[in-house]
C-alpha cells in the first residue's frame, strides 16, 4: 500500500482506493473556507451594528457581535460537512472530501467531533499530527475516525481506455520461437507500449530496443536467431500479433457480463 493511500472495503469486499489529501491542498481549502467564514462574520457584525443603538435590539446585536465568531468557527464546518457529505465549499473547490474510515460520508456526530477538536488543532497540534500521520490526519480526524481524500474529478462520461495499438505492419510474420513463454504481463506491456502516442520516433525506437532486449531474454532466443536481426519495433509488433489470439480471444464471446 502506498504511504498516502486509504483503502476501504465495500460490503461485497471490493477494495476502493482513495488518495489521502496532503497538507498543501488542505491548507488551500482551509484558506477558502476561512474567507467565506470571514464574510459571514462580517455580515453578521454589520447587521449587528446596524441595529445596535436601540434598546433590546441593541442587546441582541451585542450578543451577535460576541457569539458569532465562535459559533461560526465550529458551526460552519460542522453544518457544511454534515449537509454536503463532507465537502465544504473550500474542499469542493480543491476536489477534497471528508470520509469516514469505512468510506461513508460523515454524519453530524463525526462532523461535530472533528470540528470541535479543530479548536485544539488550530494552535498547531493539528499540523504536528498531520506531519506524523501517513494519511495527513489532524487530531480531529483521528478522534472522529475520518480522513480527507482527493476526489478525482469525473473527466468524461466515458471510461478512458488505451487507444488501439498503432501497428505499422499488420501481418504477424513468421512464428517466433518460444512465444509460449510470454504471459499476460508481457502482453500487457506490449499493448501499453504500442498504444502509446506522442512519442518522438527516435525515443520510441530506443524504448523499443530496451523492451525487445528484455523480451528476447524471456524468449530465450539464441544469439544467432533471425529475430535478433529484426528492427526492435517490428519484433514487438509481431510478438503482439502472435500473442493476441491467446490473450484476447474473439470479441464475439459473450463473457460474464451482467444484465443491466
Amino acid at each position, binding site marked *: 500500500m502506498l504511504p498516502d493511500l486509504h483503502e476501504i472495503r465495500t460490503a*461485497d469486499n471490493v477494495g476502493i482506493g482513495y488518495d489521502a489529501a496532503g497538507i498543501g491542498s488542505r491548507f488551500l481549502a482551509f484558506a477558502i473556507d476561512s474567507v467565506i467564514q470571514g464574510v459571514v462574520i462580517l455580515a453578521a457584525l454589520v447587521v449587528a451594528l446596524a441595529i445596535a443603538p436601540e434598546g433590546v435590539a441593541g442587546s441582541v446585536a451585542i450578543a451577535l457581535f460576541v457569539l458569532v465568531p465562535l459559533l461560526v468557527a465550529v458551526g460552519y464546518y460542522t453544518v457544511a460537512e454534515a449537509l454536503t457529505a463532507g465537502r465544504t465549499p473550500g474542499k469542493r473547490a480543491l476536489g477534497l472530501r471528508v470520509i469516514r474510515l469505512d468510506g461513508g460520508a460523515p454524519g453530524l456526530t463525526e462532523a461535530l467531533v472533528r470540528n470541535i477538536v479543530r479548536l485544539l488543532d488550530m494552535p498547531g*497540534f493539528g499540523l504536528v499530527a498531520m506531519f506524523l500521520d501517513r494519511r495527513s490526519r489532524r487530531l480531529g480526524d483521528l478522534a472522529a475516525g475520518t480522513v480527507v481524500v482527493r476526489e478525482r474529478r469525473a473527466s468524461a462520461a466515458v471510461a478512458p481506455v488505451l487507444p488501439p495499438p498503432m501497428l505499422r505492419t499488420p501481418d504477424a510474420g513468421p512464428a517466433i520461437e518460444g512465444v509460449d513463454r510470454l504471459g499476460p504481463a508481457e502482453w500487457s506491456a506490449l499493448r501499453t507500449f504500442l498504444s502509446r502516442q506522442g512519442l518522438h520516433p527516435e525515443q520510441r525506437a530506443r524504448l523499443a530496443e530496451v523492451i525487445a532486449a528484455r523480451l528476447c531474454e524471456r524468449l530465450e532466443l539464441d544469439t544467432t536467431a533471425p529475430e535478433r536481426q529484426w528492427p526492435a519495433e517490428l519484433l514487438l509488433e509481431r510478438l503482439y500479433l502472435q500473442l493476441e489470439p491467446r490473450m484476447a480471444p474473439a470479441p464475439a464471446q459473450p463473457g460474464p457480463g451482467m444484465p443491466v
Partner: protein
Amino acid sequence: MTPEQFAARRRDSWAELERRIAQSRRGALRSVPAADLQRFGVLYRHAASDLAIARRDFPGEPVADYLNGLCARAHPLLYRGRPFRPSSLPAFYATGLPRAVRAAGPYVAASLALSLVGVIAGWLAVRLRPDIAATLIPDSLFDRMARGEANSGVGSAPFAATFIIQNNIRVALLCFAGGALAGSLTVFSLLANGWMLGTLAAAVHRDGFDRPFWALIVPHGVIELSVIVLAGATGLMLGDAILRPGLLRRGDALVAVAPRAVELAVGVASLLVIAGLLEGFVSPSDLPIGVKYAVGATTAVLLYSWLLLSGRSPRRPAPVPQLGG
C-alpha cells in the same frame, strides 16, 4: 477479453452512474425518489464488481483506475452517517442527556476530583504562603476582581453576558478537545480552573469578603462549574480510551468513544447560555444577597434533579437516545 471490449460492454452502465452522481449535486441523496435510489445502488454495485474484475484481469490499465475513481465518488453518496433530525432534540434534552451524564459517572467523579484537587491546592497555597499569595492567583482573576463589584467593568450587562458565554463555551469545548491529547490538556484545564477558584476563595476569605464574593459566584457558578466538570468528564473519556484502549487499538478506541463524548460535551455546553445570562444579569446586579443565594440554590435543585432523576426507568434502562437519531 481486452480492456476495450470490457469497457465497451459496460460503458453505458458506468455513464449512467456518472450522471446520477452529478445529479446529486449537493452530495446528498435525500431529494431522490426511492426508485432512483434503488437504481443508484444497483449501478454502484455493478461498478464495484466491474472494479473487482478489472483489478483481476487488467491491473494497471486506465480502466481499472477509472473504475476505482467512479466507485470512490459513488460510495460516500450511498453510505452515510446518521443525519441530524431536529425532532430528536426534545427527547435528547429530556432524557438522553441526563442518561448520558449518569452513564459517564466514573469520569464525572474523576473530573470533579481533579477540580477539587485544584481548589484545595490553590486554597492551601494561599493560606500557607500568604507572602506570595499575589503571585499565586492568576492575573486575569485580579483583573476580573478589579472590574468590580461585578463584571460591570466589561461594559454593559448584555455584552458581559455574551462574552462570558462564549468564553465558557470555548473552555468547555477545549476540555473535550483536550481529550484527543490523551486527556492531558483536559486534566490541566480542570486543575487550573480549580486552582483559580481555590486561590481566589482563600484570598477573599483572608480579607473577609466572603459574603459578597460568593454572592457574585453562586447564582451562575452552580451551572458553570457543573458544566466545566461535565465537559472535563468528556475529555477524560477520550483520554481514557487512548490510554487504556482494552482490546482495541488506541485510535479505534478513541473513535469508538468519541460520539458519546461529543454528544455529552455539546449538550452540557449549551447549558452555559443559561449560566452566562445569570452571570451577566443576576450576579453583578444590586439584588439582595439573599436573592442571589436563592437563585443559586434554585438552579442547583433544578439542574441536579434533572441530571440525576430524568429518564430513569424502573425496569431495565432503555438505550441512550442519541443526538443524531
